[in-house]
Structures are given as C-alpha cells and as structure tokens.
C-alpha cells in the first residue's frame, strides 16, 4: 500500500527502522516484524496486560497502540530486562516465590513490576495490588506475584544500600 509510514523505534537498545501501514499495532510490530515474542496477546482491548512494554519510561499496553504512535520512542520488553547472564531481581524473585504457572502473563507482569518498583521502591502490599491491577493472571491468584514483587523490592533496596 502506498500509505505506509516510515517508523523508527529503539527496541531493547537496538535501532529499528521500517515502513508500516498506519493501522499496524505495536504488538504486531514487536511479535511479527521484529520477532520479539516475549510480550503476548491476551485480549486486544487493554484489559489483560500480557502485552505490557515500557515506552519512554511508562508502562504501555502494546496491543492498543499503533506502531506509528511509538515512532521515535524507546521501548523495553521483557527481553531487554534481563537474560540468562544478568537476570533482573524480579525475574529471580518470580522463580523463587512461584510467581507464575503457565507463564503467559509473566513477561507483561514482570515488565510492569519493573516500572512499579521504579516509581515506588518500597510499596506496601496494597500499593502492589493496586499498581499491578492492569495485569491479569489466570493461574496464580496473585498471592505469590505480590510476594515475588515484595521480595524483589527488598533485594533491590538491599543492593542499593550496599552500593551506597
């Protein structure tokens, strides 16, 4: 089609440049065009949060944002949060505290939690539950997700104190 748009993104530190139709959704760009399959599709209506990514420092549901709207922005997905050699404390904590079962919500859940802890490094349980309410999990009942986030927060705060 002739109406394609020229889009530049920075995804997980890597510059990406392509032509896309204006209607192309960001989750489609990530999953189909860039083969970044950590973010998942659960509802396509912004309710479930399986597609959560970070865009210029804010948690965004990539299923209801056009790629064109993300033009020029920095995007972080679960793949950019930590890998086999540099796991993020949240990734460690989710494993340690059984914060996941089927794993489908997990990338979005952890991605959201990284922002939650940046915004509020010492959240109460209530603040965690409120701050994570945009991400649905069908398996865990959230109890161990809350526990994982609390544990990661303690770990990160202890590491920060040790560094200071």
């Amino acid at each position, binding site marked *: *089609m002739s109406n394609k748009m020229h889009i530049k993104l920075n995804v997980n530190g890597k510059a990406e440049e392509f032509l896309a*139709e204006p*209607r*192309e959704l960001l989750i*489609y760009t990530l*999953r*189909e065009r860039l*083969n*970044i*399959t*950590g*973010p*998942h*599709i*659960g*509802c*396509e*209506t912004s*309710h*479930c949060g*399986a597609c959560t990514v970070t865009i210029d420092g804010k948690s965004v549901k990539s299923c209801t944002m056009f790629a064109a709207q993300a033009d020029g922005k920095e995007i972080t*997905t*679960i*793949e950019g949060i*930590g*890998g*086999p050699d540099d*796991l993020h404390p949240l*990734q460690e904590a*989710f*494993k*340690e505290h*059984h914060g*996941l*079962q*089927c*794993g*489908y*919500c*997990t*990338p979005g859940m*952890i991605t959201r939690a990284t922002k939650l802890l940046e915004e509020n490094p010492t959240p109460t349980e209530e603040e*965690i*539950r*409120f701050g*994570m*309410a*945009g*991400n*649905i*999990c*069908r*398996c*865990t*009942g*959230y*109890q*161990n*997700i*809350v526990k994982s986030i609390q544990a990661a927060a303690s770990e990160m705060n202890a590491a920060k104190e040790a560094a200071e």
Partner: protein
Amino acid sequence: MKDEITREERVDNLKGMGCSRKRVEDARFTQGKGNYVDDVKLDGMLFGDFVRSPYAHARITNIDIAAALEVPGVLAVLTAADLEPLGLHWMPTLAGDKQMVLADGKVLFQGQEVAYVVAEDRYAAADGIEAVVVDYEELPVIVDPFKSLQSDVILREDTVDENGKATDGAHGPRKHPNHIFTWEAGDKAPTEEVIANADVVAEEEMYYHRTHPCPLETCGCVASMDKVNGKLTLWGTFQAPHAIRTIVSLISGIEEHNIRVISPDIGGGFGNKVGAYPGYVCSVVASIVTGKPVKWIEDRMDNLMTTAFARDYWMKGKISATPEGKITGLHCHVTADHGGFDACADPTKFPAGFMNICTGSYDIPTAYLAVDGVYTNKAPGGVSYRCSFRVTEAVYFIERMIEVLAIKLNMDAAELRRINFIKKEQFPYTAALGWEYDSGDYHTAWDKALKAVDYDGLRAEQAQRVADFKAGKTRKLMGIGLSFFTEIVGAGPVKNCDILGLGMFDSCEIRIHPTGSAIARLGTISQGQGHATTFAQILASEIGLPADSITIEEGDTDTAPYGLGTYGSRSTPVAGAATAMAGRKIRAKAQMIAAYLLEVHDNDVEFDVDRFVVKGAPEKFKTMKEIAFAAYNQAIPGIEPGLEAVSYYDPPNMTYPFGAYICVMDIDVDTGVPDIRRFYALDDCGTRINPMIIEGQVHGGLTEALAVALGQEIAYDEMGNCKTGTLMDFFLPTAWEVPNYETDYTVTPSPHHPIGAKGVGESPHVGGVPCFSNAVQDAFRAFGNTHTNMPHDHWRIWKTANELGLHD
C-alpha cells in the same frame, strides 16, 4: 567404600517427592522465552480467520466470496460447499453429536463459523472477512432450554425423521426434537418414596450460570502439510494432543502415522483446550489446499463467544431428613443447556459427566439424579472448567442443598455437615449414585478447619453484627461461607471411561542415559501446572536419580507415548501413576544389575534412596548412577543392555480428593460490595508431591472460584446476542479484588494409587465456588434469605438486600 554424606543428605539431593522444588519451567517463562503456539513461525506461513454469524439463528441464503478474493493478500475463502466433497463440513463432537465446521445452510448461535479466509497476514485476513457478503434470513431464536422443549421451532434438522418425529440421539430416545438426552443415576421410585414420607424436606431451584474458562492465551493452531513426504504437522493449544491426532486422522483420512501433533507451551487451559474446534479443521484443509503452513489464533471475542462454555445447569433439588438432621434422601433434576451442538467434553458413557457425585461427602442412603440435555441458540461447549466432568455443578448443588436444609431445620450448617459425613471407617464407600469413594477422613479435616478459624467465635461475632445492624449501628453484614467437597478425578478406568472409544489410561516412557541422567516422556501435557518439575520429583524418589538430572518432555505425539491428556485433574492420578510404575520397572532391572555387580543374588539387595545395598551390609552398594553406566557397558548374562521402561496405566478407580473451606465476608448492604476478610482452605489431595506447587494451585483455583461466584458469566439477550464477549464485560479478577488465602492440609493417601496421590488442581475451584456463594447467602440468612442465584455481583447482592427490605 565409605559413604561421605548422610542418608538424609542423599534424600535431599534427589529433590524427590515432598519437597518444594523450584520450577524448572520458570527460567524460560521469566525471560520471555516461552514457546506458545502464536510464537510458532514457519516460512511462507499464512493466516486464517473466520467470517462469523451476527445472528443466533438464521438460514443462509447466499455467500458471495468474489470481492474477498480480490482483496490484496487474500488467497482463498473456504465455505461449507468447499468442505462438503471432503466430508468435512460437519465433524463429530466428543459427546456423540456432530457439529458444523462451517455453516451448512444455517447458523445456530451468534459467532458461528461461516467462512474461513486465508490470507498472507492477519490484516489481510481481516480485510477479506469484511469483503465476504453473507445473506441471512433470520429465524426465531431460543435461548431458554425450558422454552426450547416446548417450542415447535426445530433447531436441528437432523433430530427429526421425515414425519417430523424426534429421532433417537446418541444417548437414547429424544422427548422432543430439541432434546438431546436424558441421563439417570440412582433409584427413582425409592427416592421419591423416602422424600414423600420424610419428616423434613427442603426444596430449592438453582441456576448454575453459563461461564467460560477464559485462559489468558486463547485457542489456536498452526497446520503444516508437507506434500513432499505426505506428513501433516499440527501445532496447537491442545490439552490432549494424542486424542487430537486420532480425531484428525479419523475425520481427514490421513493415516495417523503421517500426523504429528505438537502442543507447545500452553498459556492456561482450564478445560477450554480439550475439544476439537472448526479452526483446527479449517487450518488443516487450508494448508492442504494452499500447500503452505496456516496459522489460526482466536481473538478474545472469538474465544468467549464460540469455544467451550462451561456450566449452564438448571438444577432442582429435594433433600429429606429426620428432625435431628440425618439426611435420608436426595433428588436432583437438571435441565442442561448445551447450545446449538452437544460438544461437551465428557467420557462417552457420561453425557452429564460425573454429576452423579452430587451426594457429596455425605452418607445419603437413597438418591436419584436425572439430567436432560437441551439444544438452544447458544454456543456449543459444556467443558469442565477447572473441574472433573460436571463436578463443580454437583458440589455446588449439594453444598447449597445442605445450607437450605440447615435453614429448614434451624440448625447450624457446620453441625449438619458433621452429622452426615461419611465416616472414616466406612471407606471404601459406595455412594447411592454408584461411585466407590476410595478413601477419606472428613471429620478430622472439618474439625481442623473449624478450629483454625475459631468457628464458634465467628458465629458469635456474626450474631452481634446482626444485632448491631438491626440497631442501626452498621450497614455491613457478615457472611460465613462453608463448603466441604469431595471430588472425583483421575478419569479413568478403561472399563467405563473412554473418549471417542479411546480408553482413558495414560503413559510414561523413561530412558536412563549411561551417565545417570534421564529423559521421561509422558502422554499428558502441562498447561501450566509444572509437570516438568513434579513428575521429575516422582521419578527421583522412585529411581534414585536427582530430579535435576531428569528431563520431562510432553506434547509431541511423534515422541511421547499415547495418553489422553490433561483435564479432570487426571495428570497426577493417571500419568503420575504411570510415571511411578515405569520408574518401578527401571528399578526392577536396576536391582538385577546391582546384584550382578555386587556378586549376590537379586533378593539379597534392596533399594535405599539412590542405590541398591546388600541386605545387612550397607557398606556394600552400587549407586543408581553406577548401575546406569553398567547397563550400557557390561555384558550381563540374561539381561539386555540399556535401561528403559514404558508404562501404560489403567487406573483401577478414580481418586477422591476432598477439602474443607471457610470464607468470611463483610457485605456492604447499600453498595452490594463484598469484602473477603478471610479465606481458609484445607485440602486433602493424598500424598503431596510438591507443597509449593500445591499451594499455587489452590491460590489459582480459589481465584477462579471467586470469579465464577462473584461475577463471571456468559450472558445472552433474548435475540441470542452474547453480552459478555470482551474482558470489559466478562469478569476476570485482578490483584486488587483478590484476597490472600490461608492454606492447610491433611493427608489421606489414595489406597490404589502407586504413590497415594489424588490430584489437586481443580479442588479449589470445585470447593471454592460454593464457599464464596454460601458466604454471600449466609450474610442474609438472618433476614430470611434461603437461596439466590450466582453470580453474586454487586448489583445482584444489592438487589437481594433490597428485596429483603434492608434498604427500607
């Protein structure tokens, strides 16, 4: 040779049964490296999607695909006319009925598949769908099963003969063309007689509303027909990959050895992914037609509106008792709304599943159950949403009937349960409706639960609250929800359980590698329960190799032994048993190898944690690691090289997990908002394999129970429009609505299961729904409430309060 570590350390090193081993699955999931079906990408892969009916009941007079074929990127559009020459325009359901793959002249529910558009990508497919023109002629819509049985509108033309008379269905004669079956259990006349002559009889009608399992990942598949070697590979969200392979072979005519079905990681299933759906058939056909791989993935609306609803049971009960509260009889009639096709996923001989577990945990001498299945203009399905076949319905029914009887008797509902429980010494116990309960100790569990929550204290607090409410000091009522459930899971014995003629056994194959590590392949498949972690623990304890050295592989029919999959909490009771039995075969051979190496008779060595030792001389031993190597490098007279085993396990009986749940809730009478203050869950799932995973299952199952009891439903209007097709309308609880749960346990091992395990994944859902519901209803008991239907959303709770005059 001196042992350097203690026996206790050797046990710990295995990470076998009973320890909270961390999950081996989690590394890839936490790093975004799961491999779900939508992550499967093949060269030249196309995308298929459906044109769906906007009407619930209509005749199709024309389908014009010409414009769609002109849309850039669209390669083909399939309709029933294309499938008919292949005999694929209809397909068999798991319930003995048949179902349209693509609309054959008419549609029976909103969202029904009418045409399948194959395109280069999702956007082109969506454009193609827009361009297909379908002419519909609307027909009268029936969404009420009672009206359906009275109507002269015949929904299915294949249910009547040429004279318009109802033909026989798969489960016997029809009473009406829109009637599917009547299924009975127990003794009708004696039950009616007992109830007619009883001192006390309580009656209630209750509707267990239609809902949906709604896993976070929807259903989907990728079909790839390789025309060069004649092989079809089908990736999909299948809870039963082998059964899918057999079904695909039977309906497509492709020989089964030329079909490879792969279930990759599954993003939750909860029953949604047991059935066979039109998307699978159309994708296979499209791949054959185009010669390219074809992917089909439901969107959320497709998922909620078309694949696999659950429940929708209209239940009418009578329960009789002595004035002291001893139950004498139970009568249950169900009108079951199955939608446009009977696509329930139940064992063949059980069209209403195991609804005949509805006598619950109680010693009820006489009982009768009848279920009538009915067609309506709603989506087909009738799957077991996080429960064994219809067990949620059964447990909800009896746990509500107990409460209603307690009100009638003016008795405490906890005490009424206690005096009617089947006693420990009565097991194995044959219930009035036929099942033989394998084991149980209900009184111990109940007492532990009541004590844990200080039940008497709670009742005193509740009485004070009622007094305060009446005195105008508070607008909040307090509800105490009780539930004691017995499940029936682990289907099941091949003698009475099959699906499409396939016996419901399961399997495990183990190969021990020379260096003392192993791979085990199972016929079941994980949908998030952590099989790779727990089945390795079973094996570690059985064969004495560390769980960390055992790979568990499932879901590839080319490599895994045949099995019937994961649902009805059957993985641990059936595949888990197969795993233990295959492990024991390994151990038997290892014993002979050990005896040879130690130069003693086979009977002179015995297994000890991770080794065989010479009896009476524990310093003489061979570790399983040494034995594994010997199996590959020694020429042992009379013993074949290698160390492998396979077991197909046909369970002698079901397993009967049970539990005691108590919920404490405050309800704001003016807003209808319930606040769950406390939830205590005691589960007895027999031998506990991994306590951490059990607790996780309980948290998750309770949360799905909370959803169903307090708001989640699939609702239709009179025109058959589905009103709950998105997550805006269909309630999935978030972290904000969900409480913390207290978990507890007793252990009553199953006497017939090799390791005594019973299964736990579904218990919290089965027991949780009546517990939440009973809490809501109990809050209003003091004001005259006996029963209100779920889901207890804020509006319905407010309405109950209003109708009881609490806003006056």
